[in-house]
């Protein structure tokens, strides 16, 4: 007996192909920014990549694993600190950045062993406590001299222009690597578990999903990605003042980007990061008022559009922009 209909299973759609094209164009544009926008433009491009990295990672944590952390600055700040320390010990600054990303993953794994036992709000503030603890300990280091801070002096071994370009390309490569890693993870068996947990944690557990292992995987990935962002931010700004890296304003930025873009969607995080980049360029000089505005917009989105901009745009497009699932079409013969 032949079936009366045929199923076609695809991942790609017009939307995803357009998105791939757009992201490729954006990547090429960013890679070429030393020639297109000069040294200043390249530094801004690194800032954009750091925001994308932070948003995508915080979204993976909060949106996929249901873990809201107020203290991801733990990884952001310590990675910058590790980079300064390793460079001071004689390691090439760029190798120090890569080593700090690995150390960030290790720190994430160790942290996950006990922090994941905390629930929701407890976990959120508990991470803040850890970030604060790391901040205080970093301040004790004589190299850092408390809040005075220090610089990544060894970067001076590279000429200013080539340094900026090199930092940008490294930032681009690292961001793409983490992005690909996340998409591959979401498309794997673990990804199915992540989606199940996102939609209904108790339900996922009841059908045999190892919730703790899955959350730990996401947590370690997010720790490494956030660490990468911190080390890259240091490479771009060279100054390391602990408060500028462990400050709670970074959490406000992550919250803003993910809530405005759309919690639980990679596309949303990227849109949120780009939007934040634009807003920061225009309004960043307004100081505390700027933070008031960011907080207000984030709260309004949380209350009135909890799925963010992508929650509104996404369903209106055919297929997924960054597909992690499959499209199943049924055609009658």
């Amino acid at each position, binding site marked *: 007996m032949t079936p009366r209909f045929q199923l076609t299973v695809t991942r790609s759609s017009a939307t995803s192909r357009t998105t791939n094209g757009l992201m490729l164009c954006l990547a090429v544009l960013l890679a070429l920014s030393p020639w297109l926008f000069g040294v200043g433009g390249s530094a801004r491009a690194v800032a954009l990549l750091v925001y994308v990295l932070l948003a995508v990672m915080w979204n993976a944590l909060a949106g996929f694993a249901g873990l809201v952390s107020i203290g991801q600055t733990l990884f952001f700040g310590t990675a910058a600190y590790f980079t300064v320390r390793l460079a001071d010990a004689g390691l090439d600054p760029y190798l120090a950045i890569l080593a700090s990303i690995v150390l960030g993953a290790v720190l994430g794994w160790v942290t996950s062993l006990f922090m994941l036992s905390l629930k929701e709000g*407890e976990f*959120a*503030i508990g991470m803040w*406590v850890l970030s604060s603890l790391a901040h205080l300990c970093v301040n004790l280091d004589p190299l850092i001299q408390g809040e005075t801070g220090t610089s990544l002096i060894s970067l001076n071994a590279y000429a200013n222009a080539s340094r900026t370009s090199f930092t940008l390309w490294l930032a681009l490569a690292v961001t793409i690597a983490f992005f690909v890693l996340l998409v591959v993870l979401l498309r794997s068996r673990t990804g199915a578990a992540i989606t199940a947990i996102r939609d209904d944690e108790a339900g996922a557990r009841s059908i045999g999903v190892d919730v703790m292992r899955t959350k730990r995987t996401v947590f370690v990935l997010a720790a490494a990605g956030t660490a990468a962002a911190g080390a890259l931010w240091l490479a771009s700004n060279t100054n390391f003042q602990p408060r500028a890296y462990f400050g709670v304003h970074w959490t406000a930025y992550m919250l803003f980007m993910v809530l405005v873009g759309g919690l639980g969607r990679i596309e949303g995080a990227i849109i949120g990061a780009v939007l934040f980049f634009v807003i920061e360029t225009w309004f960043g000089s307004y100081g505390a008022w700027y*933070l008031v505005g*960011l*907080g207000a917009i984030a709260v309004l989105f949380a*209350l009135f559009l909890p799925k963010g901009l992508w929650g509104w745009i996404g369903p209106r497009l055919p297929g997924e922009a960054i597909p992690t699932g499959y499209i199943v079409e049924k055609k009658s013969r």
Partner: protein
Amino acid sequence: MTSQIINAILLGGYYALLATGLAFMYSVMRIINLAHGTLIVLAAYALWVLGERLSIPLPAGIVVVAAAMFALGMALHHAVLARASRGGELLPILATFGVAIILDNLIFQVFGADSISLAPLVGDLTWASFELPGSLFVGKISVYILLASVVQIGLLEWMLRHTGLGHRIQATSQDRATAALLGIDTARTAAIATGVIAATAMGLRAAWGPYSGSVQLLFAFEAVVIGGAGSLWRVLTGALVLAFAQSLAASIHPQGFLIGGHLAFLAAVFLRLRGAGWSFTALLKSGVRA
């Protein structure tokens, strides 16, 4: 040594004042309010404006500020918390954190970066002290703060166990929506009263600035986690342990004060991992029903 121990106990009294409101509101609303510290700081600024700028005596100021904070609490509840808690467990955390960011920076814009204190409002009391045997002197304000925390916890515990409201809270502890219908206003009044008392205590014992809220939140939170489930009296225990850990660490290293508190928090998390079901979340389960 003895004076260090006494000071740690008195400091613990202050932390208990900070933490009681957080724990109590959690037991009723099932929400950890990340704006807790910021709201206390805001109330302290309001007390300062009334006392220093308008020359209103502190006791009268406390009544006025409690009324104002009650109005603000109502507004925040209806505009933010009630709506956010319908959207799952994550949104209230995000929303209250957003509120804290907004308020912290608004306070900075209005009052500037200066550290201020309520001490001038009470005149001699600021440096008045009791003399204990062995020529030990302890500040009167710190003693009053410790007494206030004990009285406050006693009253709230009595309310939870012996009044109709307390029984309604027990009955609805697993159901946020129903809890919101039953007695939430009374509970919020109690929580706001504890907050204003904590604000008075904070303002009298030390100077504070626009961004002091997050530290107060961390202290309150650590006291609750260290104390663990059981009853509000355990919040007092947690607050005392926190104060002892901080004082001990401060005596080891001049910058060790905060680190000691954070390490005590970590130790509490590790202890809980060993499986005693020792959780903030379980505060009400075993606490009020006991």
